[in-house]
């Protein structure tokens, strides 16, 4: 198959590209290197894929690129590109979120209509649910995002559904629950926690640590994308979680365990837009695409630690403060 991966230099996009190439598919990656974190880290993410003769890469923005050429002969589109970051979505930078998460998605959908795409998989987020007491979150749970970021991802979902219903575009929406693992963005909690603990530094923690999350290892997210593309389903919306709910305090204890060091934690008040608990009901994903998370938290954290320890000092410095 021939795949187009948007956000191909990012955490999930690059991991997915590597897996598609490994499975014998042809991949075109597109990324505009938004400056949310250092370009050097994204270039590093691309290294493996760029060694493959089945890989093409174009630096372009979905906001203005002419997409028809990139979609020529493409069977699967994996729309992983987005402006990330819940906290930064408040305030003056919202335009970046509406452009990159909503307008870019609409442009891609329009272009897919004119192409012969057999599946578009849209990367959404558990942040569309917002704070809810309705746990576990099922796909029919109310969506009340508590951050502008969540609002833009939900708007993207609605656009995908509209193009599926009105035009018959084959689509699947995947709602990712807190993804972690090698290549995780430097601003994300586990990356900061592990780096800080390895360096003997202090961890900044928002909230009391009793907030719980359904953490999902990146390989499971990748597997869900590939299964969603190949499965004979369309118009579906699926939760993709890691299969267990764990508090941040429990994660910190586990990080202490796998690094052999005691994490030093400095606690701060909960931030606007942070959700207290997330836990996914993934039974629908199991039923429709055979999704079953395979990597547990201890193994996943160990693999993220191994990745961080494999990076040279320059890349670690590029990640910025923990």
């Amino acid at each position: 198959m021939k795949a187009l991966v948007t956000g191909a230099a990012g955490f999930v996009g690059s991991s997915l590209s590597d897996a598609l190439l490994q499975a014998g598919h042809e991949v075109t990656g597109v990324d505009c290197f938004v400056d949310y974190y250092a370009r050097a880290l994204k270039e590093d993410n691309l290294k493996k894929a760029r060694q493959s003769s089945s890989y093409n890469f174009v630096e372009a923005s979905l906001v203005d690129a002419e997409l028809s050429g990139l979609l020529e002969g493409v069977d699967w589109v994996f729309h992983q590109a987005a402006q990330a970051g819940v906290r930064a979505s408040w305030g003056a930078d919202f335009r970046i979120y509406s452009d990159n998460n909503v307008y870019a998605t609409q442009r891609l959908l329009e272009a897919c209509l004119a192409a012969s795409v057999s599946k578009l998989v849209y990367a959404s987020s558990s942040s569309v649910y917002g704070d809810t007491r309705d746990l576990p979150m099922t796909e029919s749970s109310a969506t009340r995002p508590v951050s502008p970021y969540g609002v833009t991802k939900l708007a993207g979902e609605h656009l995908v559904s509209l193009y599926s219903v009105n035009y018959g575009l084959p689509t699947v929406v995947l709602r990712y629950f807190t993804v972690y693992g090698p290549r995780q963005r430097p601003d994300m909690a586990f990356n900061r926690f592990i780096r800080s603990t390895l360096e003997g530094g202090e961890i900044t923690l928002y909230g009391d640590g009793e907030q719980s999350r359904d953490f999902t290892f990146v390989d499971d997210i990748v597997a869900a994308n590939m299964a969603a593309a190949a499965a004979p389903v369309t118009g579906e919306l699926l939760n993709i979680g890691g299969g267990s709910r764990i508090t941040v305090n429990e994660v910190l204890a586990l990080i202490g365990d796998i690094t052999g060091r005691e994490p030093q934690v400095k606690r701060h008040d909960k931030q606007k837009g942070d959700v207290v608990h997330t836990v996914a009901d993934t039974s629908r994903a199991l039923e429709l695409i055979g999704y079953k998370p395979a990597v547990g938290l201890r193994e996943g954290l160990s693999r993220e630690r191994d990745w961080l320890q494999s990076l040279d000092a320059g890349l670690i410095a590029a990640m910025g403060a923990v």
Partner: protein
Amino acid sequence: MKNDPGLLDVLACPSCKGRLQYTSDEKLFCDACRLVFDVKDGVPVLLVEEAEPAD
């Protein structure tokens, strides 16, 4: 990575959406907008803000 000639043929200018020409110095040129897009290490950089005006 290949970035095959077939791909270069189908890329378009992000400003006017018109066809790009692959130049002898391995860049992509939009005649209508008079913009030159770099190809860095085989990667076409189709960002208007990084394009150079043609002489």
